[in-house]
């Protein structure tokens, strides 16, 4: 469903990604593993148009979406849960969730969609009137995920969901992502360690200095401790 071919991207003067080829099939869980600063965030940002790629192409269901505006890519169903959550700080929890359903088609069914997100994160319901800026780190992460799920996503791009969280909260977050995946959603997740991705990952890519150096089925790759250690330290 999502296909990335020869993607290069970077910031003024320096190229970060040097020709990435990657695919995610329907309902598949794909993990990009790589140490910090090797281009995981850049890869997700280039796919969703926040950082227009320099060359290469991105296809969604065989349709070229390279260099579309981020809002158009999101509307097409590629939904990015960004690093740092990027909540709307002075909106309430409920308002944040509702913004996830901004698209005309989802706006009219936002109440049903809220129900589904509340099933995943029941606490969001009682805290609806609280301002997003007053939430704890773990709560923010869950809200960001819930907000993404309010849209009619075909695939979720999730950027390092464990970043800055306590171990227990991290477990909770991954458990909920696993449930989302079990509901049939395709997921492309970037992470810097392989501790939590079991049961979520079907396939794993290893990213090193802007190049995907290895690719393989999750059960094989995640077993190979020596390989993971040499790449991720």
């Amino acid at each position, binding site marked *: 469903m999502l296909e990335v071919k020869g993607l290069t991207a970077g910031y003024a003067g320096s190229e970060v990604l040097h020709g990435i080829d990657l695919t995610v099939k329907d309902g598949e869980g794909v993990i990009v593993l790589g140490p910090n600063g090797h281009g995981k965030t850049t890869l997700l940002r280039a796919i*969703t148009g*926040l950082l227009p790629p320099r060359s290469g192409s991105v296809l969604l269901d065989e349709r070229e979406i390279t260099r579309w*505006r*981020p*809002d*158009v890519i*999101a*509307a097409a169903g590629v*939904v*990015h849960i*960004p690093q740092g959550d*990027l*909540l*709307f*700080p*002075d*909106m309430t929890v409920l*308002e944040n969730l*509702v*913004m*996830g359903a*901004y*698209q005309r088609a989802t*706006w009219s069914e936002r109440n049903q969609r809220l129900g589904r997100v509340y099933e995943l994160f029941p606490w969001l319901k009682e805290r609806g009137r609280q301002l997003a800026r007053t939430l704890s780190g773990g709560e923010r992460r869950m809200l960001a995920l819930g*907000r993404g799920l309010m*849209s009619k996503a075909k695939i979720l791009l999730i950027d390092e969901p464990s970043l800055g969280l306590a171990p227990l909260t991290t477990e909770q977050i991954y458990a909920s992502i696993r449930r989302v995946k079990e509901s049939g959603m395709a997921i492309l997740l970037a992470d810097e360690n392989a501790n939590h991705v079991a049961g979520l990952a079907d396939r794993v890519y290893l990213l090193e200095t802007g190049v995907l150096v290895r690719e393989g089925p999750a059960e094989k790759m995640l077993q190979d401790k020596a390989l993971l250690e040499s790449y991720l330290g």
Partner: protein
Amino acid sequence: MALGLTLVWGAVRLLNLAHGAIFVVGAYAAYWVTSSLHLPILVALPIGVLAAAAFAYAMHVGFIRPVLGKPGFDNATIIATVGISIAVSAAALLIFNPEYKVVPAVLSGYFIVAGVQITNQGLLVIGTSLALFAVVYFYLTYTRHGMAIRAVSQQQEAASLMSIPVERTYGTVIAISGALAGVAGVLLSPFFFLSPNSGFNPMIQALIVTIFGGLGSIRGALVAGFVLGIFESFVEVYYGVAWAQPGVFVLIILMLILRPNGLFGIGEVRRL
């Protein structure tokens, strides 16, 4: 007037120094409809408002949108909006000549309460501004597009990930703000004579109100508008007209010392 300024600042972080020019565009459009087309002011009012909104939107397309998100956005837009102001007064001078024009009031007549003369038009202005505050507040709080405006102002990148078109949303804000300036232009012009520079004083007052209430705060603009208006009249009555302006400035200076972000200031961190 202040509502429009604060809206654009709150949402786009654009200090719109052409706000007075937009006010003048609305007022002259209404004047032209009443004097050349001989239509009643009630027809001229919506036309003036539309003209102001269209002008503001054109300004967005021509001068704001091209520099959105670029470094130097602040300086570029301040200079561009000052330039637009100068161009508008020059154009008004060429088209309508420098003579003072009269825009008819929507309501005539007055009544006297406790020895103070209150014009019906004055009441209309107060009623309209209260109503517009309520409408804008409702729009931003409860509607899809209004909430999108707040989302864009608080976290632009996340807003685009929610499939909100950022640039178009900015255009909407600027057009709404233009319409508000247009309403002010048409309804306030009967209180003084319309000239190419008529927009300057209302804009300075709107700026003062906006700063006093807290840049970007809608509630602040409403409260500050009334507080400053009443304070000014109070000084006029008890200390003489000459002290009104200095009095307001003293109040502003005190305010900026005590609460640098204004009454309900949202400062750098908080937004709409």
